[in-house]
């Protein structure tokens, strides 16, 4: 038995028939070949599978694919636009915010969710925002640095169109 679902994934309309027991992460990885979203546990603890569903960070192992019917899903593969890295991607690279890379896509998606809510996060807010994402390589130090950097870049970009006013990026 399958259900027919329709999703917008990284801006593209996708329709598929899925077993109701299948998780969103399984459909993304196995049916849509979006293997950038990873599975690191079986208890919704690690956050490696974090994606955006209708703009909010969601662990895609906690959601059935049929629950995402009609939603817009964004994965790590949809973060760069026209070959240009998202500021968080660029900052993770710049600040050595990754080592083995396995947690990185989920980390970036969780961080992007934070920066949608605030572009002036404190370190405490940054650490809280990624508390649902495990990283075993970095000790989180450079991930925090990267998100701080991405926030500064985002603030500067937001300030730029207003004009040349000083203090755009504090």
């Amino acid at each position, binding site marked *: 038995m399958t259900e027919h679902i329709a999703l917008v994934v990284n801006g593209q309309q996708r329709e598929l028939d899925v077993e109701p*027991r299948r998780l969103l992460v399984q459909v993304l*990885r196995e049916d849509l*070949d*979006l*293997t*950038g*979203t*990873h*599975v*690191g*546990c*079986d*208890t919704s*603890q*690690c956050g*490696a599978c974090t994606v955006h569903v209708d703009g909010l960070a969601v662990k895609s192992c906690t959601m059935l694919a049929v629950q995402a019917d009609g939603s817009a899903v964004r*994965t*790590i*593969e949809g*973060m*760069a636009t026209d070959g240009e*890295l998202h500021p968080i*991607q660029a900052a*993770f*690279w*710049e600040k*050595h915010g*990754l*080592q*083995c*890379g*396995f*947690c*990185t*896509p989920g980390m*970036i998606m969780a961080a992007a969710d934070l920066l949608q809510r605030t572009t002036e996060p404190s*370190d*405490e807010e*940054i*650490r*809280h925002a*990624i*508390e649902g*994402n*495990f*990283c*075993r*390589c*970095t*000790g*989180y*130090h*450079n*991930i*925090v*640095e990267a998100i701080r950097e991405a926030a500064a870049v985002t603030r500067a970009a937001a300030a730029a169109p207003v004009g040349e006013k000083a203090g755009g990026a504090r």
Partner: protein
Amino acid sequence: MTTEVLGAAIKRREDPKFITGAGNYLDDIKLPGMTHAAILRSPYAHANIRSVDVSAARAMPGVVAVITGADIPYNPLPMAWPAGGSSGLQNNVNMPRVLATDSVKWTGEGVAAVIAETEEQAYDALEAILVDYEPLPTVVDAEEATKPGAPQLHENAPNNIVFDWTVGDKSGTEKAFADAEVVVKQRLVNQRLIPNPMEGRGDIGLYNPGTDEYTVWMSSQTPHIQRLLLTAFVTGIPEHKVRVIAPDVGGAFGTKIFCYADMALVMFASKLIGGRPVKWVEGRRENYQSTTHGRDHITYLEVAGKRDGEVTGLRVKTYANLGGRLSTIGPGVPTTLYGRVLSGCYKIPNVFCEVIGVYTNTVFVDAYRGAGRPEATYVVERAMDLFAAEVGLDRAAIRRKNFIPPEAFPYDNPSGLLTAVNGSKLYIDSGNYEPALNKALTAVNYYEIDKAKKEARKRGKLLGVGLSTYLEVCGVAPSKWIGAVGEGWGAAMWESANIRVHLTGKVVVTVGTSPQGQGHETTYSQIIAHELGVPMDDIVIQHSDTQGTPFGYGSYGSRTSNVGSTAAIKAAGKIKEKARRFAAHMLEASVDDIEIDGPNYRVKGSPDKVKTIQEIAFALDLAFDPPEGMEPYLDETAYWDTPNCTFPFGTHIAIVEIDEETGGVELVRYVAVDDVGNEINPLIVGGQIHGGIAQGVGQALWEGAVYNDDGQLVSGSMMDYALPRAAWLPSFELDKTVTPSPVNPLGVKGVGEAGTIGSTAATANAVIDALSPLGIRHLDMPYTAQKVWHAIQTAKGGQA
């Protein structure tokens, strides 16, 4: 002039694929016709298997094959490092089979496997397999397992003892204790840990019936070793018929060094089903039950010394839990990698260590980040604090007093800790311990810490500061040392590299090491760009595929930057030498007159007569006009066997605050001053130290694998095992001193494990320091709020 890349904080070339989701980890690989394997694991920690009935499972939808241990003709997995060394050697080796046949020794040992069209179908069919178990009594504690009357796991291992290994100077140590003014004793538990790389393990086996060859993809640190072990020792398939590939590896921390049953299973299964690929990927709970754990020591520590703070003797007896059967190098970790470094950076004249390796009904224990050295550091750094408390001296002062002085290097351990059975010696190559200590003390304002303690007390907090002046050993090891008769190690430990400069001037470097997140493609490129004078962007680093790379022992033990890189430098040296000879031919000059300046090969005194390495490669690779006797192509291979290990060191200081009401421990500051010698890439060095610190702090404060008395893994999932989260940790404060190693041309030492080695002891010492006003002199890790609260209540009750 090209910009110097060696030693520069260059962004990693690996990262673009990882930050865009284009990495290629094992579970991302899809092959046509792929089937999926699931493994039925024992629910009992100790049982005889009376029968296995797979008939119902075979009839389940989508099932392609069901396999039991009886179906597989292969040998048990190999033991590559039975404990060598001194007296009492027993080596009662019992290794896992691909699937268990007659008994199971831990919850999670594989008993049967299903191969099905989908993963779900494979797991559904596992439930239809009927296994008739005869449960047996269990023991999970290493010390308990050696006592009379304990359940016995193996007929060939009376009292569950794998080995009884000793190192050091027994009689000298006895005399030191007899003469001592002060003796301090303490039982220490170094709890069992679950390493937890974010990507678990997995394999894909593909048999080609047309060529009778196998390809095996595995998430591994050691593809060449696995090909050797799986063919020569397990399956009997000729080595040249197997190709092993490690794709992107999502962290490993030691767990992916070893030879596992599933690797052989996917090979067997693919052939059995006619050559369709078979993929097995472990789930996290499966990883907890069936991939190696780390640590798990019970240690009786005795320290002898004088009232003035001089430590004169160290006597250690350790029970090392090795699990129900042995992992690939399980016995080597608590022996050579532990007992031989027990005196740390101190000139303790008399040391004796006995280690009893023990079977218990738990999953096997093997190398986990640091592997033996964190356990040794924990012992010696707790020893210094306990001794300082006993004689009433400052903990920094007592360390300073006992440091090996800088003029004593290369240092020959007086108790023979680093002397192999055949007399072959290792030396502590270099060191200068006080500058790192001083920097760290200054950073935390150590001598004013009492003010901070008083201020914290006003807030209801107990503040503690903890030091660890650790010593690490990297680049294990010279083959002639580790291969010494009686040392037990079953392999050499050199490394390899090949460099080819192609006709277009582009450089292909293949190496025998195999990364898991360390950024080797970046660091090797920096080194080769420096050596050959070519742009980094013109260099590619290839690794982790037995087809196309020279045999190498892989990456673990912080050996790539020192052993692997030196092999690459040696290969580059051969390239330069051949290029120089060909340049002389091209420029019609004598070889001795050719000077090398980056990419330029120039005739001395004639600056215009010059050829670049790219021009040389073009001409020599075409070989239209080679000199007499010269082979075409710039293509050179080198092997490097290190003459000695390297010995990074440093001082780590943790500051914790304990809530007196709740027992909750907070790490408020962490300062690490490390000396890893010269740095190839400071960005990567910093990242390695950060991650190491987090893992070591994790052990001190939160992590612990817990088996109940029945051998059930109570901490069986990520919901139960407390991995450090971002909000639990502060940012770390790093500094360094630089004492280049004389052992290799780069003067590097290795950095992969230093953070872990230093941080557990520093954090533990901080917690005990915080609790010391209550009269608490020791508490075993992890320092959970519950444990600390109980300790505080007990101490206060005792005072009342």
